[in-house]
């Protein structure tokens, strides 16, 4: 991250790309404190882990190919692990490569921490704020 402070200073943004159930997502790498292969509840760091697909309301449980626990720390809350799948690569994107959700969808998407869209490689990467998602998930459990 640059220290310019202005809105443009937030870009370029470094994204960690992953997919769950064939749907592609991206998260800003500065939200990711660490990653580890997930083999069961005892392995994850921080608070009890939660599954990404449940937090964003997939209609059914997708098969995970390579589950990975991503450690995030929501503001003012304990660090916790979010279990994602199929980590792909890390890319850098400019401000002009990201679009907000269309107005019709945005209120629904924002409720689940989805804040933007990045079309890349013929796919549509949905950008997710894992800190917000994890924070909401922790708040709902407490």
């Amino acid at each position, binding site marked *: 991250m640059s220290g310019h402070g202005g809105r443009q200073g937030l870009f370029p943004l470094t994204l960690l790309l992953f997919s769950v159930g064939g*749907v592609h997502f991206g998260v800003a790498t500065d939200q990711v404190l660490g990653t580890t292969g997930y083999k069961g509840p005892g392995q994850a760091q921080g608070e009890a882990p939660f599954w990404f*697909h449940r937090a*964003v*309301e*997939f209609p059914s449980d997708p098969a995970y190919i390579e589950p990975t626990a991503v450690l995030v720390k929501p503001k003012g809350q304990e660090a916790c692990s979010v279990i994602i799948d199929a980590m792909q690569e890390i890319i850098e994107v400019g401000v002009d490569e990201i*679009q907000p*959700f*269309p*107005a*019709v*969808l945005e*209120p*629904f*998407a924002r*409720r*689940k921490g*989805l804040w933007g*869209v990045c*079309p890349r490689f013929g*796919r*549509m990467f*949905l950008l997710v704020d894992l800190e917000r998602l994890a924070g909401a998930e922790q708040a709902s459990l407490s």
Partner: protein
Amino acid sequence: MEPSTERLKSDELLDEVKRALHEKDVVDVEEERVKIVVFRSGGIRYAFYGSDIREILPPREIFWVPSLPACLPGLINVRGDIESVIDIRHFLGGEQTDVTKCLIAIAVRGDFRSGILIDSVEDVLDLPLSSIKPPLSSLGGVARELAAGEIELGEQTATLLNIDMLAAKVTL
């Protein structure tokens, strides 16, 4: 040639032409016309005001987004711009065809902008406003709420849909 004060036949002809032209203008003003896009959704015939439809796109991949209601199947990429997609069959009923085979009408009205899944475009018509009748009383449920009127197309009819009402239906 010296100008003549006598009215010639050509003067009368020209008067007649101008009178006819004026009458035509009067008729055009009196009979306001509207463009209508007639389409099928779920096997049933409907229509939109042509002024509400920006373009009709061929079938394309719709990218699913979690947490959306059933009437919103996801996103499409239109020449690099991301657009939402509404499945109006959720409101209107009818046959459920594969969404990947549906055309997508891009509707724009005021601040509202979205793709709308349709089966096919039947016709684009220029109709007198008076040909739009009130919605059929037999229409029920959400279709009744979305109906702006009814259009006679020969022996058949099409329900004219109100984009504003559709927008209100899908707004959180």
